[in-house]
């Protein structure tokens, strides 16, 4: 894209401004997490002196590391599960021929219109009946299959020429080998996209972990954050913000690493 210099300056000014506005709350939180409690109560923006007290306090009050570990584990489980199941489902929708394939896919995608909250009670009953309350599998199970992921990967797989499948068939490679050695490598960037997306959504889950866990052993970091907030009458905002920072760090790291791929993958899925 070629722009005149003046246009460019205006564009960049606007972009910077909106970036600052969007980033402001996080910036406040960041500064606040390094403040003493007086500063926070006085509503200062920059700490008068920098301190790590809040972080120490946050880690002392709660098993934050345990929570972090739980979150990482569950998010990974959900991510891997989603990648496996939605890529297999998408493969079937693209490369297997069966009656009612399109109708089935339509129904499949239609489930995206049902919000998770609407199915949370039956899910809870199922997990409870399976005796999976307070377990990692119980936390991950309802999220292993995803219509969105299947949809995204189906779009990608559809761009693989059918002749590739036919050529492998003639070479004597079955569906599973073709899936592993051709489809997955070709769809790599979409898989990374879906992986990051599902990891982040799992990381940010709140309602389900709250319902399906009763003790700190399996709780995720988001619930921990909430506990930090409501344990006392007077909120120690500095401590809460320190907790929030700790929670946000893995997300940020992941975004920085995966930004390019994420954009590419989402754009690929959007084309055609």
């Amino acid at each position, binding site marked *: 894209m070629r722009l005149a210099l003046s246009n460019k300056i205006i564009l960049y000014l606007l972009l910077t401004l909106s970036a600052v506005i969007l980033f402001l709350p996080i910036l406040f939180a960041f500064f606040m997490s390094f403040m003493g409690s007086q500063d926070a109560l006085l509503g200062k923006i920059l700490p008068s002196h920098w301190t790590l007290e809040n972080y120490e306090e946050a880690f002392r009050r709660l098993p934050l590391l345990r929570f972090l570990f739980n979150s990482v584990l569950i998010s990974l489980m959900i991510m891997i599960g989603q990648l496996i199941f939605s890529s297999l489902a998408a493969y079937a929708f693209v490369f297997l021929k069966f009656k009612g394939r399109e109708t089935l896919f339509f129904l499949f995608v239609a489930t995206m219109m049902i919000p998770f909250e609407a199915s949370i009670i039956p899910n809870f009953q199922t997990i409870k009946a399976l005796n999976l309350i307070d377990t990692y599998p119980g936390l991950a199970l309802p999220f292993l299959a995803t219509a969105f992921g299947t949809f995204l990967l189906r779009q990608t797989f559809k761009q693989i020429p059918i002749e590739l499948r036919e*050529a492998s*068939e003639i070479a004597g490679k079955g569906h599973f080998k073709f899936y592993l050695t051709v489809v997955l490598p070709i769809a790599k960037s979409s898989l990374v996209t879906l992986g990051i997306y599902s990891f982040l959504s799992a990381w940010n889950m709140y309602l389900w972990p709250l319902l399906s866990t009763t003790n700190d052993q399996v709780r995720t970091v988001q619930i921990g954050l909430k506990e930090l907030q409501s344990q006392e009458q007077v909120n120690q905002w500095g401590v809460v913000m320190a907790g929030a920072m700790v929670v946000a760090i893995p997300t940020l790291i992941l975004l920085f690493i995966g930004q390019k791929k994420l954009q590419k993958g989402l754009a690929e899925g959007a084309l055609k």
Partner: protein
Amino acid sequence: MKQVEMIDISKSYDKQTNVLNDINLSINKGEFFVLVGPSGCGKSTLLRMVAGLEEITSGLLTINGEPANHLPPKERKLSMVFQNYALYPHLTVEQNILFGLDVKKVNKEERKRRLKETAEMIGLTDLLKRKPKELSGGQRQRVALARSVVSRAPLCLMDEPLSNLDAKLRAQMRIEIRRLQRQLGLTMIYVTHDQVEAMTMGDRIMVLNEGKVQQVGKPITLYNEPANTFVASFIGSPKMNLGQAELLAEGKQLIVEDKLQFQLSAQDRIHLPPHQKTTIGIRAEHLYPAANHEATHHLEVAGVEHLGNETLIVFEGIGDQLWSAKWSGQWMVSPGDVVPVSISVENFCFFDAENGRLIKPAYKGQSQEVVAQ
């Protein structure tokens, strides 16, 4: 020995209309067999049925003498080259060529040996580490060829493999494919919509139209004795000139498109079919230029194409037909001119006026060509 045989093969995609009708065909070992026809006539469908990628609706397919209707593709001992080459974009040229050999349990040494040999034969040695997107069209084509060669399958199927290349490269690849096929003794089934490709490459050609076999035969037979008017106008460039003909004056005179009159000699009358009405066909090279006094007819020029070594002239005013003539050398005529030509009945092919089937090929042209061979 027959490599592939089809008996009464039909194909229908929607269970109502047939895309292919009662195909009967046998292809010999080591033969270069070309399937040609206009696009949409069912060539790819037929090829894909041989490959096992498409179900056969009815009829029997045998490969190496054994029924193969329900054999999975990998057990048919064949390789296939696709129109878009079907190269795996994430694999290097080397990996692309060797793709599939691991399934066939070919050991490492043997794989290496075959790769080296094939790459040398096809001229890919320097490109082995590249990815398909770093190759030109012609190079991709070669990789697809190499993949098919390396499998050592005795039967090779190709579906319009050259249609994405430019004219010059196409001519070169035609020769190369033909050379490879001879060298390796492959049985080839080659699909194309280009009659030049069919004529120049095929040992035998099958012309297909609207799902029906029009004719099977050697290129030269198809050219000289087209089985019907479709083959006559499909094979050869320019197409054969066709016209409605009628016998008059008790069989002593033939009149074409109510315009061109021919007095029939005694010899003509021996060779001519007795039918009152026929469709006649004459090749462009048999409309000879003539001096005014030896001309049999005068025709009006509608268009001229100068090819340098020869001149292509299109005549109008023969009924509503346009006839073309191919004269060697450079002829300075222009549209609107009336040109003397010499046309002789001995070069006429006669087709049934109703169904277009060949009644009699040209008696002169044929005997000449046979001698020339």
